[in-house]
């Protein structure tokens, strides 16, 4: 345990620092106007520090009692949830358990790599100080979403995440398509966030509190609560890009600059985290007797998988193609989590395969964030070098950009579920666990995976293999910072594929424990 050797004061305030430092970074970045390189260096440093803090936070959470850390803002001591004389919590608090730590790890790792990638990738753009400021702001939004224990706080961070994300999607304001995609994303996010606020209003009006842990203890099976559950479920499914509400995904992912596409992946996944939190903790008490909620997620997952995979086949734009694949990958996670949710009321089924389904879903979440990020980075490197997005106009790029080609191939093999890459490990786990629930689900998942593999094999051949085209004579390999970022992500893809047990024991299992630990969450990790 590293945290034992650090000053107590520092360790106790880690949950606040991990938000405060990127926030401070975001507000200092605009001062570096006209110093694009300085802003890039600043962002790499800040996001790197945030990543280290996330690792320390993980250690701190593991070492704490009940595997949970509570940080109450403005209280006499950070762990004081109920000041004397109070029976309900009144202060805003962060409540961090295994699941939050898993997400915090991803929500700092990917922005860090995106910042490294941007050093070379974005250097020719103007307004870089704003780009980097928004990037750090988006990191803050995602981190806040996954660490908070207060439902209104969740809404605020969701909005920070969406506003910064939409501004970054439309960052290339010299392209009309970017403004169109940005408008679509912000309109959908604003609408969704208002629905979240509406359901927060319902819950506040009924129970007079905003603390997730407190609410999870008092929630009842009543019409108002079900309306709130429905609104939250729909909104977070919309925000995580599950079909049939996926229309914004290919647009936003496709039009965003490459590093931002990678951050959009993890931003969507933090909405998936919110979905998990709502289903398993906030409404955990009533969802256990409502298998329909699980089935809704399963059906959404199935539609996402098939729709995303088939729609990707007709795309010509390389990033829209990967964007549709992202929809299909989201389907896997939503389906696995839906299976876990549907059998929550059945202890035997839960023990035999429900837990495995949740483990598989969360493991796939990690892998998805990483190999989707890799694919977006590699595709953007190709667009950066070839100056076209149309795959029909590309060919023979492997000769010119050998490293990028290898990284793209690793990502493609991973998403297609080929061993020994990470996609294989998590998809196999998903097939196994959902087969026990219903074989049809496993069949659909496998078919989707085969479609993805075929699609990527075809596109890889079209873009990278064959004779070089005449219009691509002057293409050169990407700048070094882009290659470094891609190499790190590719290394993680291979590592997680070769040693899945490492990641499962280190990150995923504590997260699954936390998901099912409703009583522990409700008591703030105490008795």
């Amino acid at each position: 345990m590293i945290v034992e050797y650090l000053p107590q004061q520092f360790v106790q305030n880690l949950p606040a620092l991990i938000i405060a430092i990127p926030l401070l970074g975001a507000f200092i970045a605009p001062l570096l106007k006209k110093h694009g390189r300085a802003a890039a260096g600043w962002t790499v440093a800040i996001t790197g520090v945030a990543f280290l803090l996330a690792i320390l936070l993980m250690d701190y959470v593991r070492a704490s009692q009940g595997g949970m850390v509570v940080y109450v803002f403005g209280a006499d001591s950070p762990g004081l949830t109920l000041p004397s004389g109070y029976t309900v919590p009144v202060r805003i608090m962060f409540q961090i358990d295994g699941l939050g730590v898993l997400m915090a790890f991803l929500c700092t790792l990917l922005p860090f790599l995106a910042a490294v990638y941007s050093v070379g990738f974005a250097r020719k753009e103007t307004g870089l100080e704003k780009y980097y400021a928004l990037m750090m702001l988006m990191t803050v939004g995602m981190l806040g979403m996954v660490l908070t224990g207060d439902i209104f706080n969740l809404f605020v961070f969701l909005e920070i995440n969406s506003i910064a994300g939409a501004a970054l999607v439309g960052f290339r304001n010299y392209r009309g398509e970017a403004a169109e995609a940005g408008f679509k994303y912000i309109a959908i996010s604003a609408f969704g966030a208002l629905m979240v606020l509406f359901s927060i209003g319902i819950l506040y009006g009924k129970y007079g509190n905003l603390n997730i842990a407190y609410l999870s203890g008092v929630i009842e099976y009543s019409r108002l609560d079900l309306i709130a559950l429905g609104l939250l479920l729909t909104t977070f499914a919309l925000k995580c890009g599950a079909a049939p509400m996926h229309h914004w995904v290919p647009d936003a992912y496709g039009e965003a600059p490459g590093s931002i596409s990678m951050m959009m992946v993890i931003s969507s996944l933090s909405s998936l985290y919110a979905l998990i939190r709502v289903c398993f903790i906030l409404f955990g008490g009533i969802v256990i007797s409502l298998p329909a909620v699980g089935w809704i997620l399963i059906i959404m997952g199935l539609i996402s998988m098939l729709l995303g995979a088939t729609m990707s086949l007709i795309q010509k734009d390389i990033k829209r193609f990967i964007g549709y694949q992202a929809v299909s990958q989201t389907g896997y996670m939503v389906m696995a989590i839906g299976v876990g949710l549907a059998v929550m009321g059945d202890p035997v089924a839960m023990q035999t395969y429900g837990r495995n389904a949740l483990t598989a879903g969360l493991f796939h979440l990690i892998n998805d964030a990483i190999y989707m990020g890799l694919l977006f980075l590699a595709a953007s490197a190709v667009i950066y070098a070839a100056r076209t997005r149309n795959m029909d106009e590309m060919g023979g790029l492997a000769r010119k950009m050998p490293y990028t080609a290898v990284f793209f191939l690793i990502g493609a093999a991973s998403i297609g579920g080929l061993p020994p890459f990470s996609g294989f490990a998590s998809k196999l786990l998903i097939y196994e666990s959902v087969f026990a629930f219903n074989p049809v689900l496993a069949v659909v998942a496998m078919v989707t995976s085969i479609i993805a593999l075929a699609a990527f094999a075809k596109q890889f051949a079209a873009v990278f293999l064959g004779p070089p085209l005449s219009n691509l004579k002057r293409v050169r390999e990407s700048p070094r910072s882009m290659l470094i970022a891609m190499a790190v992500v590719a290394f993680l893809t291979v590592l997680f594929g070769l040693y899945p047990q490492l990641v499962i024991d280190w990150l995923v299992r504590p997260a699954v424990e936390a998901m099912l630990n409703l009583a522990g969450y409700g008591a703030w990790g105490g008795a």
Partner: protein
Amino acid sequence: MDALVTNFPFVIVAILVAIGFYAVAFKRNLIKIVMGITIIESAVNMFLITLGYVQGAYAPIYTMAPEEAQGNMVLPTPQALTLTSIVIGVAVTALMLAFVVNIYRHYGTLDSRKARRLRE
């Protein structure tokens, strides 16, 4: 009749949400879609404010509070939530309008049927 009077603000909220939904779903002009979202936002803000209203209670200001206000003050949370939501709403509206301006500059139209090059 009494129930209608007590629930009147909620009826208004429902009507506003319906108008906003209609604008977002059926209007073609991008500015009108932004207006629809802003109307829904107002409806949600009004919903929060209505929740915070308690008949006969006092505003939670302790300075120079009258005698009968002791122990009879409303919780200021809904007001705080609404203020936060209004501030966020301004930022969202500004960003949406900025995108609309940008779309108009590039496409020369605000019609959502014509301003779409991203399709498939």
